[in-house]
């Protein structure tokens, strides 16, 4: 038995030494040469795990900004000097423990100046608690849940429209077209819950009667119970809050139970071209909120118009930007503008600049309220028409009129 103790002790000491060597070596040494001024910006973003796909979009958005700001823009202006940006990104694997560890590592070992957010509300919650503790600014573009902004954090800023406003433009559009009643189904996790609470609020605002609200758990495989119940209520509008899987399930289930509301508003799925690819013609007439679309009329002096941003993105990555990519670039851009306005890398000054910010970017207006949410930006809405994703709201970016009501399943 004694031998085993010794074995363990020796192994542990060896391992500890190894780890001690490996940990500092793992992080990249901050800026070697003194002649070039560098701002270090860190982010822990999923490259693997359950958010691998969306995390990939986030990474591409950040990297696009880094390349642009260094090579084309010539570095961030701080006072009279130009600072290059060095972006340090790690893979959080979608795991909160890993996200916490990496955020801590970015702050305490890599000594980054500022942080950008991870993908998803949950991971943003883990990471922002740590950045708050170290008084580090984190600008994020991928955590929309309202519960992120009720914790009283001073250093968390989000450029995206919060989840509560996701359905606003869609509900307004269908209410204007004559809808009277609505039913809501949502996955009972942080982001969809915020969406559904917002939907109830906006439905009331636009004079729609909420007939029923139903929840379902994550990764549900069958929603026919919810759909038959809804069919019985015969509502004008169906609102579904959830993720990509759920959009597939809702549309499938509605068709096979012949549940035909006059409009279906579903989050996350419809704005993604992959939904049309998977569902084909069944996806037609579905309405979805969108944070951003390349056809929107916003523009700025940095990336130009939304369309120009999309082209730049396509040139670099060979694929169309999703709104997740655009909002990530926008988060980085907002940080850049704040640093330039502050003329300093000092956290307090940059925070003041963020609080005072009121700009319009290729992604839309950015103006943070006292909790750090982007209060100024309206949410767009798209509808799938004949297999194409077209913007139907807001008015300024509209490509086509809303088709309402949607034709019943058997008359298509």
């Amino acid at each position, binding site marked *: 038995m004694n031998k085993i103790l010794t074995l363990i002790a020796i192994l542990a000491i060896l391992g500890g030494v190894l780890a001690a060597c490996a940990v500092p070596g793992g992080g990249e040494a901050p800026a070697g040469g003194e002649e070039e001024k560098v701002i270090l910006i860190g982010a822990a973003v999923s490259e693997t795990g*359950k958010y*691998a*796909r969306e995390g990939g979009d986030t990474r591409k958005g950040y990297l696009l900004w880094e390349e642009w700001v260094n090579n084309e823009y010539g570095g961030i202006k701080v006072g009279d000097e130009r600072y290059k940006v060095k972006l340090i990104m790690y893979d959080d694997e979608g795991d909160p423990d890993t996200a916490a560890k990496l955020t801590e590592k970015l702050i305490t070992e890599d000594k980054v100046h500022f942080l950008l957010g991870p993908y998803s509300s949950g991971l943003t919650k883990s990471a922002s608690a740590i950045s708050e503790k170290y008084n580090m600014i984190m600008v994020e573009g991928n955590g929309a849940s309202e519960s992120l902004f009720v914790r009283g954090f001073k250093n968390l800023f989000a450029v995206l429209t919060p989840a509560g406003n996701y359905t606003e433009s869609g509900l307004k559009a269908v209410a204007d077209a004559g809808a009277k009643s609505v039913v809501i189904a949502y996955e*009972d996790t942080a982001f969809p819950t915020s969406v559904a609470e917002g939907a109830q609020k906006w439905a009331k605002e636009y004079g729609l009667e909420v007939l*029923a*609200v*139903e*929840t*379902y*758990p994550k*990764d*549900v*495989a*069958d*929603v*026919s*119970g*919810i759909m*038959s*119940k809804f*069919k*019985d209520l015969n509502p004008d509008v169906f609102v579904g809050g959830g993720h*990509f*899987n759920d959009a*597939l*399930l809702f549309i*499938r289930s509605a*068709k*096979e*139970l*012949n549940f035909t509301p006059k409009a279906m508003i579903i989050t996350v799925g419809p704005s993604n071209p*992959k939904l049309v690819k*998977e*569902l*084909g013609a*069944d996806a037609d007439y579905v309405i979805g909120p969108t944070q951003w679309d390349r056809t929107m009329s916003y523009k700025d002096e940095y990336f130009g118009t939304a369309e120009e941003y999309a082209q730049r993105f396509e040139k670099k990555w060979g694929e169309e930007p999703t709104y997740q990519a655009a909002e990530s670039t926008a988060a980085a851009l907002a940080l850049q503008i704040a640093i330039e306005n502050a003329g300093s890398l000092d956290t307090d000054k940059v925070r003041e600049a963020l609080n005072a910010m009121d700009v319009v970017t290729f992604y839309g207006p950015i103006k943070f309220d006292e909790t750090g949410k982007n209060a100024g930006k309206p949410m767009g809405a798209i509808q799938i028409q004949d297999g194409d994703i077209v913007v139907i709201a807001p008015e300024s970016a509209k490509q086509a009129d809303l088709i309402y009501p949607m034709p019943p*399943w*058997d008359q298509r």
Partner: protein
Amino acid sequence: MELLLQALFNGILLGGYYAVMVLGFSIIWGVMGVINLAHGEFLMIGAYGAWVLFRVFGIDPFLSLAIIMPVMFGVGYVLQRVLINRVVERPHLISLLVTFGLSIALANLFNVIFTADPRTVPVSYNGSFNILGMTVPIVKTMILGLALLIMFALHVFLQRTRLGRSIRAAAQNKNAARIVGVEVGRVYAITFGIAIALTAAAGAMISPVAPIFPFMGPPFTLKAFTITALGGLGRIPGALLGGMVLGLVETLLATFVPGVGTNVGIAASFVLLVLVLILRPQGLLQGLRPMEVE
């Protein structure tokens, strides 16, 4: 009333699917005493098989069964020979851990190959028709029909054919079966092949109605436990009964509990599992092997 009828019908459709989904799991457990924690992953492989055949060759998912089942039979046969055979004679813990490792490996392998994007097979006939004021979903009704057909065929196979009798003999008493000249090793490999083929077929059948993604498996494995616990091991009527009970419980709760019905349904299916194990460990129907309790 209409809603109740519709809910009962939906529950039966779901129950029929559960019954065919659980067969492979129940057979492997009943015959070999191996609890296959990778059950859901084989279902996932079948679903991806149907998706690939549909996307690449345009083959209908129900027709693709003719390709998927033989291929997966081969996969199961080989897998039993190289891997499962090593753990059949060993305690349950070993086979639990091995199939658990297999389930993690398979799900993540498919995640690398197919990415986490959910897929689905958009068949053209996925609508519905009306009978007596009830909405009848076409694909799910086809699944129910096929499920009953498969169960009947399997029943006949096990009862009437020589091979089927060998399988039952090996399940009941391995040593006695050996004495009367049954090649237990070969019978096990064939059984495993059949079970995997059935599981993959269930996966292919569900491909037009549910999202397909690499991590879809574990909930099915858990439900397979519940159904087996309800219906007893290795028996086809048991699988049917267990599937129907679960399908009806889930659907009725989802339809009639306001607000959180779907959540309650899913919670109930797992609470049911624990309760049945605790209160009636031999299942509602006795199986090939009785579940033992001290």
